[in-house]
């Protein structure tokens, strides 16, 4: 999906240019954008104010409770470089990155590098606040730090807690720790599966309920919120009424994770394209209804399992996202295994993503149109089909090794061999004129992860 979503951004811009010539009316996206941003800024400062108040309270009362430490600071980071054999496109680990390894840089430090700092304030045994700020390559290419987690948690009982604020979604087993390299066995979670979900965080409320039955533990998480994210295309995506239900069942070394997620997604970059389609009568309106991404209900389902007795691990996950729009329906999977030999843990991973729906559309019937409109219709059909055909289709084999060479620091080396599907750019971005879909791309990654 990620290639389609990115591509959608570029096509959206192209359409805005087309519209500005006066052929077709254009929505006022700029005003909408700044309004949303202003609201987000207000919300950020509210969260910050509440967090600061809670944390300063906890400092004041800190000496009274000797059981748990009142304030805990911690941090993490990854310094990584990636080299790609494909110089006509970029490999990235996140769908929000503007560029990566390959075309933009032969060796890119932007793909995996990240640093984060966190503070947790335990105000009372039941009430705590959390703030995590991270710096990584943003959608606009800067490394300006942003708030990844910011919430206040209330522990109603030992099994039930509720958090209000920003949390990261538990879509897959490693989704909420995908940026904590040290916590993960690989340089990065398999890109096919972990780019299926275009939403990373949620501003809202989440509840977590633990259920013990015998030696089994089930942790049910229900989250409700929304997210607005900037995109490299300069526009933003809005996920409203975001609902996540995830359950993790653990028994000794075995873990099973299932998640369902739905949201009403608006890709603002596509607004102009489908508004343009709507100028073409009932057929254009029908195409806009079928393919538009304006408050569109999208659904994700994922299931994964892991067995990790310590000396070795094996895990696998599968997920599907249905956009019921031009962004299509995509499913992805991976299977991974590793074996610990002292400080070294070599691992092997297989993964893939494919599109489960049509990658082309006849679009508007051009023949019936007068010449001046036919030209515009051909342009719109071309734009629609270029998004549809950018569906990700790829398979990856990767092998690597984690070396825990010193306390709290590891070094990982990893090779990825990516077979792009016929006619597909896979998950690659920034495709250049010389790019050949369906080729093989080899990556070499080296990363140092640390926690403190």
């Amino acid at each position: 999906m990620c290639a389609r979503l990115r591509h959608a951004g570029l096509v959206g811009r192209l359409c805005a240019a087309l519209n500005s010539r006066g052929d077709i009316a254009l929505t006022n996206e700029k005003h909408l954008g700044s309004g949303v941003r202003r609201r987000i800024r207000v919300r950020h400062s509210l969260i910050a104010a509440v967090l600061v108040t809670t944390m300063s309270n906890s400092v004041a009362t800190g000496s009274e409770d000797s059981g748990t430490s009142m304030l805990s600071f911690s941090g993490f980071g990854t310094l990584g470089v990636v080299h790609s054999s494909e110089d006509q496109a970029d490999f990235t680990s996140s769908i929000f990155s503007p560029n990566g390894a390959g075309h933009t840089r032969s060796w890119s430090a932007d793909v995996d590098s990240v640093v984060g700092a966190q503070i947790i304030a335990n105000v009372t045994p039941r009430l705590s606040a959390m703030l995590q700020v991270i710096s990584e390559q943003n959608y606009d290419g800067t490394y300006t730090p942003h708030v990844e987690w910011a919430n206040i948690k209330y522990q109603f009982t030992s099994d039930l807690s509720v958090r209000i604020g920003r949390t990261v979604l538990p879509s897959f087993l490693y989704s909420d720790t995908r940026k904590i390299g040290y916590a993960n066995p690989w340089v990065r979670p398999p890109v096919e599966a972990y780019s299926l979900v275009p939403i990373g965080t949620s501003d809202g409320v989440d509840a977590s309920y633990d259920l013990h039955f015998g030696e089994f533990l089930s942790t049910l998480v229900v989250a409700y919120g929304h997210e607005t994210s900037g995109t490299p295309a300069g526009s933003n995506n809005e996920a409203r009424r975001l609902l996540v239900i995830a359950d993790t069942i653990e028994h000794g070394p075995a873990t099973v994770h299932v998640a369902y997620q739905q949201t009403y997604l608006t890709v603002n970059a596509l607004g102009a394209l489908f508004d343009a389609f709507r100028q073409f009568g009932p057929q254009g309106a029908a195409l806009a209804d079928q393919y538009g991404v304006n408050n569109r209900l999208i659904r994700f389902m994922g299931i994964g399992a892991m067995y990790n007795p310590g000396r070795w691990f094996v895990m696998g996950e599968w997920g599907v996202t249905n956009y019921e729009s031009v962004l299509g329906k995509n499913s992805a999977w991976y299977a991974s295994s590793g074996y610990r030999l002292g400080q070294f843990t070599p691992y092997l991973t297989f993964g893939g993503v494919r599109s489960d729906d049509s990658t082309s559309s006849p679009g508007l019937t051009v023949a019936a149109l007068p010449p001046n409109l036919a030209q515009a219709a051909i342009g719109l059909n071309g734009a629609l089909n270029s998004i549809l055909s950018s569906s990700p289709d790829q398979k990856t084999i990767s092998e690597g090794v984690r070396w825990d060479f010193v306390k709290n620091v590891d070094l990982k080396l990893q090779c990825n061999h990516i077979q792009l599907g016929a006619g597909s750019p896979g998950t690659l971005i920034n495709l250049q004129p010389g790019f050949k879909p369906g080729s093989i791309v080899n990556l070499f990654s080296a990363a140092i992860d640390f926690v403190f």
Partner: protein
Amino acid sequence: MTPAKSVPLLTVGLVLLMASSTATADVVAVVSSRSTITMLTTNQLADIFLGRTNRFPNGEPAVPIDQAEGSVARDRFYGRVAGKSAAQMKAYWSKIIFTGRGQPPRAVANSEEAKETLVQNLNAVGYIEQNLVDASVRVLLTP
């Protein structure tokens, strides 16, 4: 002493050293001898120390007491109970800490301090070297 002779001697010395350290470093899971807890399975013990539960099977609150990072007792304990190395335990807790779901158990400096803590807190459960077991503690299991 010629080099040829010193090598086998050194080897014997090393083997003896390793054998003795294995013998003395065996750890046992313990509670206060006044605790109501009399036994735990390895899985139940692991769940308490991995933060998956904060209660004993009988419903009493459970407070796990760790030993210092890098201590032989700690590495031995998690190796036996969870099958995990020190680095794997750090990775495990990183996943929990950086998602705001919890904090690792409180750590004390050594087995003597662990025993003192257990005596003071009847909900506490810890691990100590087997040769330091005395009347103040009850051994739940030898992992």
